[in-house]
């Protein structure tokens, strides 16, 4: 294992994060606060409790998930896309690093960044709503698994993308809608039966549901199903990443 190499990538990526620390932290905190004000306080006060939890508290796990998903994809995607774009990727490709080590560096940094932001949002939410986390270890586990698997997805997108538009396309057109329709801001039991069934095909539902269970002990789908869904998703992403490096897809000419 080339640990110095992994650490070098990791540090370089974290430096990018801290260089723009204001942007990296202020913007997610600000947008989350807006959600709390609009959904939690303004609209939420007119919505009855869901499964014994006030609406303001109910949306906290969904909000954290939304941000962690977006940040993981964005950070990892940009992290590998940018060197490709400016040409510094040659150094990574010529270094004595295995594909696993490269992924560990980029995906590790992206996951840590989004975990940090997730924790900051959780801390912010304490200012707005009264909330206790029932299973903190499970919460961390779900957050970590989600951060890692979506950072893997971001990494794949970053390698696949040929321009910045493509880089933003999938998060915008696929991921964000899935998050909004995945029960982040409501329980799918509130939906008509047809939509409930359809929602079960949305992978994000399993993430949000499992994550919310770790907070309140209630879930839309069984926790085991949530865990299985995250693991399967992470497995698929890993398989794609492995294939990318085997074939040199969009990395080597």
């Amino acid at each position: 294992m080339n640990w110095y190499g992994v650490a070098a990538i990791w540090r370089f990526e974290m430096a990018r994060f801290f260089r723009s620390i204001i942007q990296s932290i202020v913007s997610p905190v600000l947008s989350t606060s807006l959600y709390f004000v609009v959904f939690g306080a303004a609209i939420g006060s007119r919505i009855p409790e869901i499964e014994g939890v006030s609406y303001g508290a109910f949306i906290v796990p969904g909000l954290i998930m939304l941000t962690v998903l977006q940040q993981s994809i964005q950070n990892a995607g940009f992290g590998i896309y940018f060197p490709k774009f400016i040409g510094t990727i040659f150094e990574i490709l010529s270094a004595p690093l295995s594909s696993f080590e490269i992924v560990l560096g980029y995906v590790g940094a992206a996951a840590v960044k989004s975990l940090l932001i997730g924790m900051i949002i959780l801390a912010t939410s304490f200012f707005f709503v009264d909330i206790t986390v029932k299973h903190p270890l499970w919460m961390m586990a779900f957050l970590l698994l989600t951060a890692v698997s979506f950072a893997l997805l971001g990494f794949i997108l970053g390698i696949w993308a040929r321009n910045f538009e493509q880089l933003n396309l999938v998060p915008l057109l696929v991921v964000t809608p899935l998050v909004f329709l995945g029960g982040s801001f409501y329980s799918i039991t509130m939906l008509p039966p047809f939509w409930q069934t359809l929602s079960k095909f949305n992978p994000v539902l399993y993430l949000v549901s499992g994550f919310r269970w770790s907070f309140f002990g209630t879930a839309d789908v069984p926790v085991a199903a949530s865990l299985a869904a995250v693991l399967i998703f992470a497995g698929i992403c890993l398989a794609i990443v492995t294939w990318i490096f085997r074939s040199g897809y969009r990395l080597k000419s």
Partner: protein
Amino acid sequence: MSDIVTVENLSKTYDGGFQALKNTSLSIRQGEILALLGPNGAGKTTLISTICGITAPTAGHIQVGGHDVVTDWRAARKLIGLVPQEINLEPFELLINTVRFSRGLFGQPPNAAFIEKILEDLSLADKKNARIAELSGGMKRRVLIAKALAHEPRVLFLDEPTAGVDVELRRDMWQLVERLRADGVTIILTTHYIEEAEAIADRIGVIRKGEILLVEEKTKLMQRMGKKTLKIELRAPIDAPPDALSEFDLSLADGGQALIYSYDAAGERTGITRLLASLQSCGLAMADLQTSQSSLEDIFVDLVQESAA
């Protein structure tokens, strides 16, 4: 001397179907400076990129320090440093951090003193805390060299290191190359400044259209291919070389004021003594004599044109 890099029957066809390297073989000796010359698009960068693992070979084998670059890539790559032709650097990062990054990437533990020394050697020390975007073009090229040297490579590839570099800096770079060679580092450089190759290389390789035309010791090559000329300035101008001198390869120059005699520098007998004696017997009075030798540049142009014909 043993070979540190061996390239055997290497071919590279790019995805578009263009064949940039055709069954190329090359041996690079431990500790030498090899200059690769060739016109634009000859395949120099492709050859280097393939050795360094950036481009996948279509066929053939490459070994660096006895390690196959495909099957034993980790050991092979640790030995290699690469200064690419294009200036590719992360613009927002600090100079010193990008150099440290390179060292780490190649699996070396941090060594602040060593990094400082490299920056000193490349006259970058006073800029170490500047952002890359704040550096001049020549400085950026030096940063690329610093990055390539950061992990103490044994084989250094310099792909046109002196393009766009001022004269003074170019001399500094040659000195650096000399010092590295003294430390036992093998250096492969490509350049379009032939006098650069002439000044620092031990061996010259000429590549054209994906094929290596020759690899030869510089001095031997210049002897073998080089022509020497003797210029004889005359007291009084003449219309044509006298018939009595027709056995010599003579031409008229300076409006009949001088004769040019070309001879083979590698030949056993130059014929100069005989020529001079014959001139006397023809009654031609000499004012001055001057010899010159064709440069590597002339040889290179001849070679590339010859093979194009």
